[in-house]
């Protein structure tokens, strides 16, 4: 039996262990470089927002971080564990909510969470308690035995958070968690995410297009554009750097050239289609 241990690579970042450390990571789709030598450091306990227009490389970065894609260059560690060499260990530390609504509508909420408890090897004796606990934490106890297809959009997002929570992850990765939700459901989902972070001290990495959410809920931000990180800092610092009374929308426009989608990235159309698909499923 081995115990989770830092990978001890030669390029370990300075100072205390980061929750996430990306060093010069690069990913290409054919001839197109989606992520180009990106450096990123996320401290334990932070809520970190990765912002950028469609095609900026946010989702590709997230997919490398959660071990779905292998960087063609560079190195990613999650709590010191290398994602390329020890992906299974990294997965045990991550709770992931993808952009698409990914709960299985043909199963009940309880079954959806139970599935992930089993796949994360939660011991049988603890499983029922952990599943019930995750559903209760997300306010879904009463709806637990209804099929997920009957849930509202906000409830499905909360169910996905319960799925991500059931293995007690150290890092919660949320890819546009509130896309397509109405303002009330967005606030509702954020209340639950904040509660999770405050109660369990998780590190949260999220992408979003909503600047108001990034401003309100993130400790640190990175603005990404055309595969590069253009700026990092706290929302206050980023705004202050551009002058008084500057909004985060203006910061976003400043660093991304005032466009929402100019990259022509391979995934650009697909990103839009995915977002629309999610919005459609949410009604």
């Amino acid at each position: 039996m081995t115990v989770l241990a830092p990978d001890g690579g030669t390029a370990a970042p300075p100072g205390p262990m980061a929750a996430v450390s990306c060093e010069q990571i690069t990913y290409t789709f054919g001839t197109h470089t989606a992520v180009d030598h990106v450096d990123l450091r996320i401290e334990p306990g932070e809520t970190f927002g990765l912002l950028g227009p469609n095609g900026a490389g946010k989702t590709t970065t997230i997919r490398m971080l959660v071990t779905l894609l292998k960087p063609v260059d560079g190195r990613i560690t999650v709590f010191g564990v290398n994602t390329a060499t020890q992906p299974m260990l990294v997965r045990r530390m991550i709770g992931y909510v993808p952009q698409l609504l990914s709960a299985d509508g043909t199963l009940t909420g309880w079954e959806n969470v139970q599935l992930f408890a089993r796949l994360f090897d939660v011991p049988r004796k603890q499983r029922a308690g952990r599943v019930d606990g995750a559903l209760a934490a997300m306010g879904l106890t009463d709806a637990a035995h209804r099929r997920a297809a009957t849930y509202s959009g906000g409830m499905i997002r909360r169910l996905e958070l319960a799925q991500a929570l059931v293995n007690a992850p150290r890092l919660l990765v949320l890819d546009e968690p509130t896309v397509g939700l109405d303002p009330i459901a967005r606030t509702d989902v954020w209340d639950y995410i904040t509660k999770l972070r405050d109660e369990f001290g998780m590190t949260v990495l999220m992408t979003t297009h909503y600047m108001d959410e990034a401003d309100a809920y993130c400790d640190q931000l990175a603005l990404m554009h055309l595969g590069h990180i253009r700026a990092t800092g706290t929302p206050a610092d980023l705004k202050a750097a551009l002058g008084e009374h500057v909004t985060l929308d203006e910061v976003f426009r400043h660093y991304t050239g005032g466009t929402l989608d100019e990259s022509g990235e391979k995934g650009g159309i697909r990103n839009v289609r995915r977002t629309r698909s999610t919005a459609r499923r949410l009604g």
Partner: protein
Amino acid sequence: MSAAPAAPPAASASIPVPGGPIFELKSLASRIVTLCWVEVCKVRHDRSELYTRAIQPALWLLIYGETFTRIHAIPTPHGIPYLAYLAPGIIGQSALFVAIFYGIQIIWERDAGVLTKLMVTPTPRSALITGKAFAAGLRSVIQAAVVVVLAAILGVSLTDNPLKLIATAFIVVLGSAFFSCLSMTIAGLALRRDRLMGIGQAITMPLFFSSSALYPVKVMPGWLQVLTKFNPLSYEVDALRGLLIGTPADMTLDVIVLVCVTVAGIGAAAALLPRLAKG
């Protein structure tokens, strides 16, 4: 903005992570049980597919089987009634039809984001595919049970030996596991549901007609007899006939072929899974 909280309790990092071949095997078994459990939940919530899928084998047995029994057009070994000879073939066909479109489900899961999330769990690709293959096998066993009941209603005398019935279920699971892996492999190449539907329809009938499901190999033309040897459905049906109606069968060869093609199918589908997830 929220204040940065204290360091996390390191919940998952403090969990000892087991390793070694015994853990790997236990983990594989656990994934198979889990994905079969999901399949059972789905069938329990919506049984309509069970009923609709029972129509086609019922028609094969009732119309095709009854008619060809009357006209005595197909010579069966040891004078076995044609309906009895046909029933194991229809079980094999029914399992094939369930499994061959299983790739559509995995493409749907890809499109719905379910596959991505499954792939971020500590489950090796091969274990995910094996679990899904056995889940398809379980669904086929349920379908096979329906055909056995239908055959009994039509007066076909199949074995009532519980061990042979368990072995029958094992063969059906193996055969379906292979065909579902074939389907998931094609899904990894075709990437789209409409393409997979087309390919599935194009290969299902040739697989069915080039097997011994409907008629003995010796009545086929020479070129078809050669093709039959490369068709896993023939080995599945041969084993099913041996178990259910006691015809002579090379059970060892049948099982070896089915196990080998299933392992190869799992390898191919698992290798293409990242391509499917990206697509």
